[in-house]
């Protein structure tokens, strides 16, 4: 799996409004990912 193009493209001000993602994970509000989930690195299959 490659790196998601949604990684680190989010805006910090918006992330501060929604600091926890849909998985209950804290967002990196300095460089948030776009989308409802912060990206997760899955092990190679």
């Amino acid at each position, binding site marked *: *799996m*490659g*790196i*998601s*193009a*949604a990684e680190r*493209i*989010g*805006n910090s001000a*918006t*992330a501060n*409004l*929604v600091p*926890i*993602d*849909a998985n*209950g994970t804290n*967002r990196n509000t300095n460089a*948030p*990912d*776009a*989308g*409802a*989930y912060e*990206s*997760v690195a*899955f092990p190679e299959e």
Partner: protein
Amino acid sequence: MKYVYALAIFCSLILWSSCRNDFEAEPNTGNLEFSRDTVYLDTIFTNIGSSTYNLKVYNNSNEDINIPTVGLAKGDNSLYRLNVDGLAGKQFEDIRVLAKDSIFIFVETTADIQTLPGSDPNFLYTDQIVFDSGANEQEVELVTLIQDAVFLFPERFDDGTTETLNLGTTEEPLLIDGYFLDDDELTFTNELPYVIYGFAAVAPGKTLNILPGARVHFHADSGILVANTGSIKANGAPSVDAELQENQIIFQGDRLEPSFENVPGQWFSIWMTQGSTNNEFSYCTIKNSIVGLLMDSNDGDETLTLKNVELYNHSNNGLLARTSNVYGENVIINNCGLSSLQLSLGGNYTFNHSTFSNYWTNGFRTTPTVSIDNFLQVSQTEVLTAPLNANFNNCIIYGNERREIGLLDIEGEEFNFNFSNSLIRFEDPQGDFEGLANYDFTNTALYTNTDFNADPVFQILEKTT
């Protein structure tokens, strides 16, 4: 004379060779084989019939066999019903299975949990199909989980008609099977699942509160309807157990078999009609309907707030909003037969940190993942319009089609939108959209720090609901 003898011998040969042993069968020797040793009839709601499950019984011997008895161990008191080789009942005699052949047995059940021992809302009901007796006896287990539930359904009157709601006018009524929830029905808890038949309606001025952990199931074509000035507040809470989702509120169909786990179109919608207001959903999963959430119009206030809401597998739309006022954060809408998110006839919308991903594979999808417009053609000569303001911040809009946003506006009406810090799929290799202002991706007033056509690398994780 010799001709007479020859004829007699010939006739004897014919008669001998014509003797059939089809009507003779060997007694069963207890060597039947079965397609499975246990038939799990999955979970059923109390008093609601199960699906029909089948069992195949094989006679792998070279002889036709006769099974003297086939039946349910609990006899006529069993809550299971059988159909053995075309015959319905609970006990059967002299069932024949031809050599190297098989027969089908179909199994169904209906159970009233109130008649079963104990007070647990779930009851594991078991029985056996018993083949033959004594040394030749063989059994196949039957297992069903029976679940108690709160059933909400339209009243049936003595004349055979059922309770209806009028969605039209007195002069031009539009009747649907439905009923207003009584005051003592306006709180759904997590104690028992709810099963809704027809439309359970929230009356004007009333609020339906759905508490964390509640499970709401809908029969075919059923839904929840929120009337003018009514509200629905379905506020769950974060769950500790990701599989159990103990605090998530889940709306889904009433078919509990695993094969219906991800089947779209099993029920209609949660329909917040014109004038309904301050509707809230948080920590909710809404799946397998025709339209997950249908938000109609707005009264100036925020009509719908969505926080941590997941909308999955809807045959039309996940959220269809018309002239509404919607705020959403951590909203996930996935596969839908039409647009996952459709914002129609204007309205005010803000979505922060939301994912709209439509990888619909149940047929051809001709609409993008997100569709936005500010008009509605109601007849050949009449077009309704309303101003639109839509903002998508830190969002993903992606799918298995090349163009996953659709922006349609009508001249003379406001059409303001902005996508910022988002990832969008929109491929236009033939340049069909060149020169269209809404699709000028270099216009930073419309598309601010937004990336296009780069893979978000979604990973599918199975979630048990």
